[in-house]
């Protein structure tokens, strides 16, 4: 298509923690300075800044991106925040891509920050305000309930047991034990631990869910000519896609995320991928709940519908399996500071494809990976394909 080539040249992140002492601006700045340091660049070399951060209700700050601006390194620069709820973290690099690909800029800093802990006692209350103000909010719903409905739909459709799904949580939390920034890494966790954890909204139990988290991640994007000067190992953004379905989630078939498939088809087409199962070597699908990883692997067309649980049981998605999935430890293990969690997946692919993932490194010199996020009312899919 003759699109301008855009690469990730640097990445950095804060530790993911339950209650950060730093303000959101400070978290953003820590991630930004680490990302810049990783590619030996300075803010003067950054042409524009893209911010990703989920509901303002978490921080309790209106026009949150304006408040975060100088923490994100945007002082005196073109600065814009894109927003697709939980999908934001993987949308932000797509937005960064079009900033650079448009020809308006040669470099772009993409920053995702999330501080959920200011919402006391728990951010679930803030989530009440995402529901339709006339038809749903009066019922007092929360996210755990609607995701329990979705998990049930998925389990019923394919006759899955809790044990099949708990394997994802075990894999990711064990993977996260190797991630220096992780909040819930645990090398010894078992399926039994997940099945014995507190029931929140059946079939969702505490260890099926990712934790409330504070944290920030930043990456540096550069156009072809600049990227090759900055680093010998640029990781290219080969494909992007996003798709937002109707707000009427109650009318949707909850057992399959069609919107993820639509987003993936766009990203694969742009990347020239015809057979994703052969051409993708690492996947970082969005895993705020363990069943979501399975759901999304199917939406990404990496497994047939209903087949992802079996693949997981066979060990195919382990770090040393045929298709390593969430080698970072994902949201279940590293933590889920909403938008920052999505961008963490992009950073993980960057490190994995460069062979810099340390103890988490996937064997076999992987050349191409896909990251995906999801959000809103079980409604949006965002997909980025990266390759070296």
């Amino acid at each position, binding site marked *: 298509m003759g699109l301008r080539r855009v690469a990730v040249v640097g990445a950095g992140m804060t530790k993911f923690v339950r209650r950060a002492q730093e303000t959101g601006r400070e978290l953003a700045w820590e991630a930004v300075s680490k990302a810049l340091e990783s590619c030996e660049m300075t803010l003067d070399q950054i042409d524009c800044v893209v911010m990703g951060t989920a509901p303002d209700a978490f*921080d309790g*700050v*209106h026009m949150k991106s304006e408040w975060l601006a100088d923490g994100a390194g945007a002082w005196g620069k*073109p600065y814009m925040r894109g*927003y697709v709820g939980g999908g934001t973290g993987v949308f932000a690099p797509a937005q960064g891509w079009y900033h650079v690909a448009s*020809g308006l800029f040669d470099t772009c800093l993409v920053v995702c920050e999330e501080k959920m802990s200011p919402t006391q006692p728990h951010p679930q209350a803030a989530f009440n305000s995402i529901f339709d103000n006339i038809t749903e909010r009066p019922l007092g719903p929360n996210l755990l309930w609607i995701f329990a409905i979705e998990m049930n739909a998925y389990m019923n459709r394919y006759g899955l047991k809790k044990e099949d799904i708990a394997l994802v949580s075990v894999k990711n939390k064990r993977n996260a034990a190797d991630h220096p920034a992780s909040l819930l890494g645990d090398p010894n966790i078992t399926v039994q631990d997940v099945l014995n954890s507190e029931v929140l909204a059946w079939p969702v139990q505490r260890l099926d869910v990712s934790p409330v988290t504070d944290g920030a991640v930043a990456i540096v994007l550069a156009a072809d000519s600049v990227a090759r000067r900055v680093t010998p190992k640029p990781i290219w953004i080969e494909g992007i896609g996003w798709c937002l379905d109707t*707000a009427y989630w109650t009318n949707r078939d909850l057992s399959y995320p*069609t919107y993820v498939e639509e987003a993936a088809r766009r990203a694969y087409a742009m990347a020239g991928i015809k057979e994703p199962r052969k051409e993708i070597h690492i996947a970082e699908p969005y895993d705020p709940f363990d069943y979501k990883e399975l759901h999304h692997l199917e939406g990404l067309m990496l497994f047939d519908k209903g087949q992802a649980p079996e693949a997981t049981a066979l060990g195919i998605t382990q770090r040393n399996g045929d298709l390593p999935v969430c080698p970072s430890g994902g949201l279940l293990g590293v933590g889920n500071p909403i938008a920052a969690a999505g961008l963490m997946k992009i950073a993980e692919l960057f490190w994995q494809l460069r062979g810099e993932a340390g103890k988490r490194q996937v064997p076999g010199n992987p050349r191409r990976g896909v990251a995906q996020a999801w*959000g809103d009312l079980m409604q949006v899919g965002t997909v980025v394909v990266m390759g070296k």
Partner: protein
Amino acid sequence: MNRTVEIVGVGWSGFRTISPDLSYKEMIFEAATRAYTEAGIDPRNDVQGFVTAAEDYHEGTSIFDEYTPDQLGSALRPMHTITGDGLHALAAAYMKIASGLMDVVVVEAHSKASNILTLDHITAFAEDPTFERPLAINPIALAGLEMQMLLSAGRFTLEQCAQVVVKNKNNALANPAAAHGAAIGRKTVLESQVVASPLTRLMAAPHADGAIVMVLADSDTAKRLKGKPVRIRGIGWANDTPALDSRDWLHAQYARKSAEMAYRVAGIRHPRSEIDFAEVDDTFAYKELQHLEALQLAKPGEAGILTAQGATERDGELPVNPGGGCLGVGSLLDANGLARVLEVVLQLRGEAGARQLKNVKTGLAFTWRGVPTTSGAAVVLSN
């Protein structure tokens, strides 16, 4: 990459001081239907991407992008929100087309300001929670402080600020979409209630409800569509720091940098002679003057004098806010930027009716996100 991008269809609903009979979805649907009809497109088949500008706290809904697709016909399509001004969303659409990723993109922004009972309190939540909010500053007071500083620096006079209000509200009388047109004199403006000295009530833009939708396309695709295209020659946006203690209060750096970028992209070297008219943020009357100088359309200290001389009237040498601006149309919250662009488009097409300017070829639209932000965006359009 670097394809030419054009606005091929515009539609709006409103603008009205209150709209108890309509939901925001109904207003957006009306605006979208008009824009699609004008461009001759079907949103389900002819559009690759959609983008909307909205802020959660203005909507009273978290993750507001959930509620954006249905009324635009964009369910199960690439759609996202920009939590910025509508002009930022326009820039996002511009980039998607310029990059070659998409050919036709729809932009939407709206205001349901009348639903917000305590807007000042909402806006106060945009102040820094650690350093600023404990001072309990009403955001309007920040505008009063800035205006006082500019008055003290001799940049303009109170009379000149009042003249901005008189001009814009009078222009709005010729704009059927404007909600706050009025024939008033400077004395009325100066003697209206003081809201944050020296700012009086009539110097601050009242709010309005409405929705605006625009269809953008690359120039090749535009040829196949029905609408009368207006070319986006240059676009730019920028932030100063949000911190009250370290921003440049005098110079509106966000406006200066936004315009510098837009002029650079458009290849404009002498804005004063190359720009025929401008739609410039006037959320507060003094802001029009401060912004005109930052946009290089007037020299420092000159904007007030030009206004007093009538140079910024519809028949002056540099018409400013011929459609009435925020003071006359009403502030449309996150849709303000698109309202400025809408007027520039209608003027360039020669469809501005009773307020039509003569012989205009190039216009500038500039928007600011209001207190307490230092966020602005500018676009240069030509026919």
